[in-house]
C-alpha cells in the first residue's frame, strides 16, 4: 500500500523535501511509522527517534502515536505549531 508523507517547517527544511510517496507493507500505527522513518538513519533518525517534539496529522487531522495509518492516507509531520 502507498501513503503520502508531508513535511513542514523545520522538518521540511532539514529533509530538503516537502512530500514523498511511501510504500507501506501493511497498515500500522503512527508509532511504528515513526520507527521506520528513524531507521533510515542520519537526519531521519535525528528527527524521528523521539528526541524531537513531532506532531503528526493523518488526512489533515491531528493524530496520536496510536492512530492507524492505512492505504492512501496523507500523513504529515511537523514541529509544534507557532502561528497566531
Amino acid at each position: 500500500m502507498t501513503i503520502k508523507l508531508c513535511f513542514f517547517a523545520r522538518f521540511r527544511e532539514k529533509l530538503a523535501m516537502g512530500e514523498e510517496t511511501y510504500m507501506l507493507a501493511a497498515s500500522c500505527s503512527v508509532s511504528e511509522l515513526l520507527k521506520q522513518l528513524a531507521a533510515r538513519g542520519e537526519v531521519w533518525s535525528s528527527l524521528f527517534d523521539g528526541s524531537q517534539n513531532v506532531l503528526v496529522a493523518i488526512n489533515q487531522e491531528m493524530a496520536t502515536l496510536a492512530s492507524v495509518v492505512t492505504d492512501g492516507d496523507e500523513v504529515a509531520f511537523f514541529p509544534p505549531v507557532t502561528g497566531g
Partner: protein
Amino acid sequence: MISIQTQDFNIEDEIRALQAPNIGAIVSFIGLVRETASHGRVTAIELEHYPAMTQRSLEDIVAQANARWPLMGVRVIHRIGYLAASEQIVLVLVASQHRAAAFESAAFIMDYLKTQAPFWKKEYVDGVGHWVEAKTTDSSAIDRWR
C-alpha cells in the same frame, strides 16, 4: 468566516460585516509581528502553513466555540507569507449578546489556534531565518478549557 490570505485586513470593515440587530458585544484579538526576539531585532517573519489542513483546523476550532457559547458571528483571518515588523498577523472577531461569552470565546479560539492550527513562524534577524520555538505557556493555556 475563515480566511487564510497573504493580504492585510481592516478590522473596521470586518466588524461592519458582522452587524446584526441583537449584537451587544464584539471582542477582537489582533496578533502583530513583534520586533524583539531572543536572538535580536526582527525585521520580518515568514509564515508557513499546511494548506490542506489549515482551513479545516480553524473551522473545527470555531465550531467548538459555537458549541460552547451563544455566538452571533465569528470571523478569523490568518495571514501567511512574509510580514514585516508591526504588521498584522491574525484577527479573531466574536460577536455575542453579552460580553462574557464574547471575551471567553475569543480567548478560547486564540488558545486553540496557537496550539492546533498548522502555522509556523520563521523570524528574520540580520537576514538569517530562525524558526520560532513553541511556547509551553501556549500548550498549558488550552488546559483551562478542558
